[in-house]
């Protein structure tokens, strides 16, 4: 039974959500909305599991006094700091008329978000610039036909999409300029490749979904 019930649930849910796509009649028209609500509620419960797993690993590090236990302590402290700030700001906001949100400008939560979370997140994203450069230095070598094509199309788009490209080719007729070639590459060969990938993905999704619905693919449900 432990094994069958989840498979039946998967099957019924899958079929119901395929059918709802075609049926505007109540209650099928409500399915998508209900699913999105349920999903976010389940997510809110599940994050307790995640947070506890994170805390557990950190506490384990601290109790074992492993080499970087102060780092684990720092994780716990910063976690609690923003949770407490958000909880206090939130409950405080409930009493205001009209009620205010925990993330309104001026709250402690918002301060932490603006001054700690945002710079960290933006910078982590930003160091990608360095990695893009080193990856291009290494990867864009004309080793074989495929790599040469990759190199050439990247080169054209890169140079054609900055004003410098217009400087270099400004003397040519408009149809021959670099920016025009870059636009052409983006609009046609790029679209073609994207479409092939997209159609492939769509059919891959259909067959994977069917495998899931029919219970053939079920490793995530067996423990």
């Amino acid at each position, binding site marked *: 039974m432990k094994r069958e019930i989840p*498979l039946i649930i998967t*099957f019924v849910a899958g*079929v119901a959500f395929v059918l709802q*796509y*075609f*049926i*505007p*009649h*109540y209650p099928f028209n409500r399915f998508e909305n209900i699913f999105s609500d349920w*999903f976010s509620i*389940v*997510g809110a419960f*599940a*994050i*307790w*599991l*995640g*947070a506890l*797993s*994170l805390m*557990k*690993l950190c506490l384990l590090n601290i109790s074992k006094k492993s080499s970087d236990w102060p780092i684990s302590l720092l994780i716990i402290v910063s976690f609690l700091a923003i949770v407490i700030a958000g909880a206090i700001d939130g409950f405080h906001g409930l009493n205001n008329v009209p009620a205010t949100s925990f993330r309104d400008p001026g709250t402690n939560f918002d301060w932490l978000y603006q001054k700690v979370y945002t710079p*960290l*997140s933006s910078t*982590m*994203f930003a*160091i*990608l610039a360095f*990695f*893009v450069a080193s*990856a*291009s230095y*290494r*990867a*864009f070598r004309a080793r074989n036909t495929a790599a040469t094509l990759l190199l050439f199309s990247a080169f054209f788009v890169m140079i054609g999409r900055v004003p410098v490209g217009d400087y270099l080719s400004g003397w040519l007729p408009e149809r021959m300029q670099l920016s025009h070639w870059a636009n052409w590459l983006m609009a046609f060969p790029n679209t073609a490749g994207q479409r092939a*990938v*997209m*159609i*492939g*993905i769509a*059919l*891959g*999704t*259909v*067959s*994977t*979904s*069917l*495998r*899931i*619905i*029919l*219970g*053939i*693919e079920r*490793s*995530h*449900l*067996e*423990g």
Partner: protein
Amino acid sequence: MVALLRIAKSVVFISSLLFAISILPTHSVYSQDAGPSSSGLGSITVKAHDTDNDAGGSITVEWDDPGYEKLAGFKGFLILRAVMPSGGKDSVEVAPFGARSYDDRSVSDDNTYSYSVAALVNGEKLMSAPSMQARSSKQWFDSRLTWVLILGLIICGAVIYFIESAKRGTKLFLRRIAGLEAIDEAVGRATEMGRPILFVAGIQDMDDVQTIAGLTILGSIARTVAEYDTKINMPVRASLVMTAARETIKHAYVTAGRPDAYNDDMVHYVTDEQFGFVAAVDGIMVRERPAACFFLGAFFAESLIMAETGNSIGAIQVAGTAMPAQLPFFVAACDYTLIGEELFAASAYLSGEPRQLGSLKGADVGKAIAMIVILVGVIATTIASAWNSESMLWIENLLRQMFSTG
């Protein structure tokens, strides 16, 4: 499973039945010519009927304009509604300029309504005669999706057919996918070097099919890992994925006969924040120095940060994603990349189960249809426009109708 398949077949049957019912007429259109109006322009003709393909609660009002909109001082068409049999008129809405139809979504399926439309010119209301009565209703099938249903049934039917025939023992040929052998090789190397394996199942939650595909590949990898007794480290970004991944790995360890070696902490949640997760994964990479990194699932901008960091520590890297925008980075920075659909196919290949492989064959039918339709469509249209061929024009129109989705 046989029972489930039987249910699937009956579902297919029922849906075709529903489709058949749906193309029967479900509503009627009433219309009536209006009497002459006070301006010299002739009358506005109003039609009202149930809005097609909806969940009820809406009536579509259509009218024609004998030329009011061109008059100076024209303010708009006012739509008026009366509840039948006896109710008084109330105004619903002034339609925007140029509109000739309006969906009144404030009606109840239990009442019958009659509509009239008034042209507002210089403060005067030039009324049309009331329309015939209309009542809104719910539909059981969205008739615009008829071709979606038919094509969907063909492709799903093909998938199910090949699954069934594979189960009955028919030998199906499928070509190799480069990169799949690399998975075993990578795990083997990690074992030799005594270093761990890092697995990232993308950064989306369980409501993305790619995450599920990543997890099924994880199942195969974890089995090898359990057999070789290698260490696996899997940070996750969503708690639901953590739960599912634990089930997957646990099952793999049980199948490999080593349930005692399994530990929940192999899979650990870090944070829901995309780049916080990346910061942590990068930290794990430079400190634990895994010998092999797997990135299989839905990825966004973090793809290259992870792949380049993995590259700098000299790990074998196998990636796979169906995010077209991230594929270039994985192709550039990883040793092997499963491109788009290959990610979905990989789990079927790795399982080696005939039924799983059958489903791939079914998807190939879809690709064959796509190619044929594209080629036939283009050729038919070319011939149609060059020689005015009626039959080719018919094919062109048919294809266009089939594949238009909205």
